[in-house]
């Protein structure tokens, strides 16, 4: 191993080696930060909504007959849907997780408007809600049919009971065990009390980018209006088949209405995370292309570097270097250059990340990204230099005695 002489030789003739090292450094900085963002987004996208995403779809029914009795219409629709073959259950609701639009309210522990409120997503539903969304109660009970009322738009009152997600329970009552949260009262709309009768494990809000996305509340209230959203859970395997059938059934039911925006939960998820998934794709592409360019650049520069030193290679061979020894020399030389590069790269990567944490609120890089990137770039460098290095081994020792 000729580490000493290789290092000393590099120090004396810096230019093209500095370029390779610099390229590796900047590539590493980009790579580390890009992968960091990819990781962050992927983690975001992997979060479960808590509902039965594979089988749920939803649609809007817009009635434009001004004389229609919405409550009667909706009750009839739900009945027809629930009895449709292939449907597991259905409800009227304002929104679904990851839909992008929905309702939120601020909740407090005291009826005192001066206190800070905690935001929560609101899902209006009836006693079929839990079964339709496919969420599990981990404490307490479901709504009774008698507890579900039609919302009176003029009176504007709110139901006095709710089912909350565990995250909401923990946020509001951090010091209590979940079972002890049951029966506790919160205050909505400043002074209206609302009691927790049930806790469910997880149900995300409609906005994937919201910091409070895990905080949701189910409210036993039906909102009869011209625009109704039906959330339907199909039996496993039936969803795609019955979607057009249900649409047809509702559209031709005789009421003056149009059915639109029919969508599966999977589509809702894809839309919700469209920016994130696109970012992941773009960044992955950038990392791959960047690595390829740097690799090719090293191949080019290494080829040149070898070609420049054929006389030296011949001399070394004459002095007794075996072919493997020559290969090792160039691989080792490249390794040293790469090491300088990745060391600089680590510093730049961390620096850039710190700036991005500040400027964009990105997350900090996981510690293992730096060594992983180092190893990757070492490998890329070694792979890139292998070809030129092998060509170097083919230089004949007789070159040493040539007079030109």
């Amino acid at each position, binding site marked *: 191993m*000729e580490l*000493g*002489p290789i290092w*000393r*030789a*590099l120090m*004396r*003739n810096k230019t093209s080696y500095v370029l390779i090292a610099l390229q590796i450094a900047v590539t590493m900085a980009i790579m580390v930060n890009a992968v960091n963002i990819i990781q962050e987004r992927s983690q975001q996208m992997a979060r479960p909504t808590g509902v039965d995403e594979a089988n749920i779809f939803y649609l809007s029914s817009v009635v434009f007959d001004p004389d229609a009795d919405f409550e009667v219409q909706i009750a009839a629709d739900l009945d027809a849907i629930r009895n449709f073959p292939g449907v597991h259950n259905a409800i009227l609701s304002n929104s679904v997780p990851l839909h992008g639009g929905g309702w939120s309210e601020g909740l407090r522990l005291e009826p005192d408007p001066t206190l800070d409120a905690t935001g929560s997503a609101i899902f209006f539903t009836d006693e079929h809600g839990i079964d339709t969304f496919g969420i599990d109660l981990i404490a307490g009970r479901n709504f009774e049919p008698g507890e579900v009322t039609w919302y009176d738009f003029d009176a504007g009152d709110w139901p006095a009971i709710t089912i909350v997600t565990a995250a909401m329970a923990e946020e509001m009552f951090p010091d209590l065990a979940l079972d002890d949260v049951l029966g506790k009262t919160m205050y909505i709309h400043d002074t209206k009390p609302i009691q927790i009768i049930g806790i469910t494990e997880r149900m995300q809000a409609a906005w994937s980018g919201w910091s409070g996305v895990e905080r949701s509340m189910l409210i036993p209230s039906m909102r009869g209006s011209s625009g109704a959203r039906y959330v339907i859970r199909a039996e496993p395997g039936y969803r795609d088949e019955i979607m057009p059938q249900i649409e047809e059934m509702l559209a031709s039911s005789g009421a003056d209405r149009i059915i639109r925006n029919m969508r599966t939960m999977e589509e809702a998820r894809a839309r919700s995370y469209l920016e994130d998934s696109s970012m992941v794709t773009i960044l992955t592409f950038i990392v791959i292309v960047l690595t390829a360019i740097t690799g090719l650049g090293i191949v080019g520069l290494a080829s040149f570097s070898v070609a420049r030193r054929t*006389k*030296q290679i011949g*001399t*070394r*061979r*004459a*002095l*007794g*270097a*075996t*072919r*493997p*020894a020559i290969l090792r020399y160039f691989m080792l030389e490249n390794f040293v250059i790469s090491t300088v590069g990745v060391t600089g790269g680590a510093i730049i990567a961390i620096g850039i990340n710190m700036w991005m944490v500040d400027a964009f609120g990105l997350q900090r890089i996981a510690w293992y990204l730096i060594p992983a990137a180092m190893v990757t770039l070492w490998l890329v460098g070694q792979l890139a230099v292998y070809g030129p290095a092998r060509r170097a081994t083919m230089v*004949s*020792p*007789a070159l*040493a*005695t040539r*007079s030109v």
Partner: protein
Amino acid sequence: MLSMQNVSKVYRTDTVETHALREFSLSVDEGEFVSVTGPSGSGKTTFLNIAGLLEEFSSGAYQLDGRDVSGLNDTERSKLRNEKIGFIFQSFNLIPELDVFDNVDVPLRYRGFDAAERKKRIDRVLDIVGLGSRNKHLPSQLSGGQQQRVAIARALAGEPRFLLADEPTGNLDSHMADSVMDLLSEINRDGTTIIMVTHEPSLASRANRNILVLDGQVSTSEPELHLAAQSG
């Protein structure tokens, strides 16, 4: 110590066959200072390459230090070069980015000596050539004569069986040439075998035996000159 019998080297292209060496025979004993001379194109360089195991030959036999070199693979030949032969080139062939110490170090690294052993040897040979104080100099900071001395030191460091010198003073002015030849003579007096290839008769006279090569063969028209062995 070194013996060639009827060694031939043929270069073949699609259209032409060149016989660089024909039936070349030579025997060198330990302690000799042999010069190989001839006009350019006579095959001296080919002989040099073959003797130095830098090239393979087409037919004949070559024994180095009692060992037959035909049939050796590249790694074995490299090892043999490294252990038995010390090269001195016309254009010094020092590595420009390495200082004097590291240049002399090169063959020793391939030998596998540890750091202490290498340092000992390097110091010793630099002393012999009179450049002990210039460890850290770069070749560009040395005169031609000094560079060749470094090359000689490099050749000696591994305690080779013989030195193989190719026009060792070809790139030097007469003053430096003389001092380098003096050095070589002294090394030979101390017991090291030297084979020198040159086209200059005045250099050849420094050796104690001269072989003349013409058209790839040892010329029989000129008698071998046996110079009286120098005392010492």
